[in-house]
């Protein structure tokens, strides 16, 4: 049996990481030189990944990853990245999600966040609340509250410059670790676009939205958040 034939016999085992250490070294040397075997390996690895069930990503782990890349990542991570990592540790992750119509706004939104760091300490819950109060008092801001029955569970403030705040209060029940709250912006063309995954027990958080909007929705979702809601709605605000 030639080396190529021998290696080919072992590729399925290599794809499963099931070879002995001495065989791995030989396999990897051969793979560097043999496109046929490399292609066979690609095919076998695709098979292994199909055996792994898709599950919701554990939400709490994103905080760890975000912190890790902020501290160990390569240069290029600017102050906005550091800010978001720190904020996530304190008040839960917030995913910046904007629709295609607001793609340009994403760029300006990021710049705005960076500029505001100089005047508002958004790295703490207290800082976000203070910034939200200041924004609520400013001309042109939209201020609304999510109600459950007659009880307000969270306040939404969207400043004219597109920086938004969600300030939950104690009336918003904590969820189990397998669930999360999620904030949506309702657009005039009857779409709902995720503005952020808030965590199971949300604290004050920020988001950006600079396009037209018709309201907000707060939903409960599986941990990690969803891209299409199943409709477990906590509250909806229309025409704020």
């Amino acid at each position, binding site marked *: 049996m030639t080396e190529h034939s021998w290696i080919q*016999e072992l590729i*399925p*085992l290599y*794809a*499963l*990481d*099931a070879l002995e250490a001495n065989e791995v070294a030989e396999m990897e040397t051969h793979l560097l030189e043999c496109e046929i075997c*490399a292609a066979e390996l*690609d*095919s*076998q*690895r*695709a*098979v*292994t*990944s*199909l*055996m*792994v*069930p*898709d*599950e*919701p*990503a*554990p939400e709490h*782990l*994103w905080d*760890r*990853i*975000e912190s*890790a*890349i902020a501290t*160990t990542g390569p240069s*290029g*991570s600017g102050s906005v990245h550091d800010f*978001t990592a720190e904020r996530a540790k304190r008040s839960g992750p917030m*995913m910046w*999600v*904007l629709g295609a119509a607001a793609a340009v706004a994403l760029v300006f939104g990021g710049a705005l966040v960076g500029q505001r760091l100089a005047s508002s300490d958004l790295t703490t819950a207290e800082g976000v609340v203070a910034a939200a109060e200041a924004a609520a008092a400013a001309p042109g801001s939209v*201020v*609304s*509250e999510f*109600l459950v*029955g007659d009880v307000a569970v969270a306040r939404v403030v969207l400043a004219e410059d597109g920086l938004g705040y969600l300030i939950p209060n104690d009336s918003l029940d904590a969820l189990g670790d397998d669930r999360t709250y999620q904030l949506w912006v*309702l657009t005039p063309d*009857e*779409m*709902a676009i*995720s503005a952020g995954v808030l965590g199971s027990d949300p604290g004050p958080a920020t988001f950006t939205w600079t396009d037209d909007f018709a309201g907000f*929705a707060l939903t409960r979702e599986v941990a990690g958040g969803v*891209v299409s*809601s199943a*409709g*477990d*709605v906590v*509250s*909806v*605000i229309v*025409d*704020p």
Partner: protein
Amino acid sequence: MGPKIHAEPTPVLSSVADVVAFSAVKTDRSDTDLVRGVETRDQSDLKEIYDRFGGAVHSVALKVLRNPGLAEDVVQETFVTFWNSPERFDSTRGSLKTYLLTIAHRRAVDIVRSEEARTRRELVPPDPDYTSVEEEILTRATSELVHHALTDLDENERKAITMAYFGGLTYVEVADRLGAPEGTVKSRIRNGMRKLAINLEGLES
């Protein structure tokens, strides 16, 4: 005067579907597009990738390690590794999910086979009931096609593949556990994997 606030008593948003249509805005973006975003240091694109594949990465790490803390370490390492070197992903060689699972599985296996894990059994618990693992994999198969491909395998082939991949065992260790000759186990894995490749050809993970 503040804006008018409408409290919606509607318990299920789908009942007001005429007004609100939830959209999968970010899912419209391809994996390749998100990788490009990571290459430009866009954390929100890494988050999107994490949302898509973090669950599968965690699942495989937990199955191999059987230790939630270690599994979380592997998930973190996997995504940090990808963040630091996104250019190493080559979309012509396979899907992003496959690439991330390859990183995670290799790292989990390294831990299982480490000297520390071999001597400290509390670190990585002993072998699970592989029959239960097989049943779980079948039950939670990503599609009917995958389910059929797995059930179509000879029972011995499926068991050997499950023990190797989800148990983090080498074929020599699988043979030892089963009391079967090493050559027989190699053949079972090889034949089973090739059957899967044929039956699942063209199915992108």
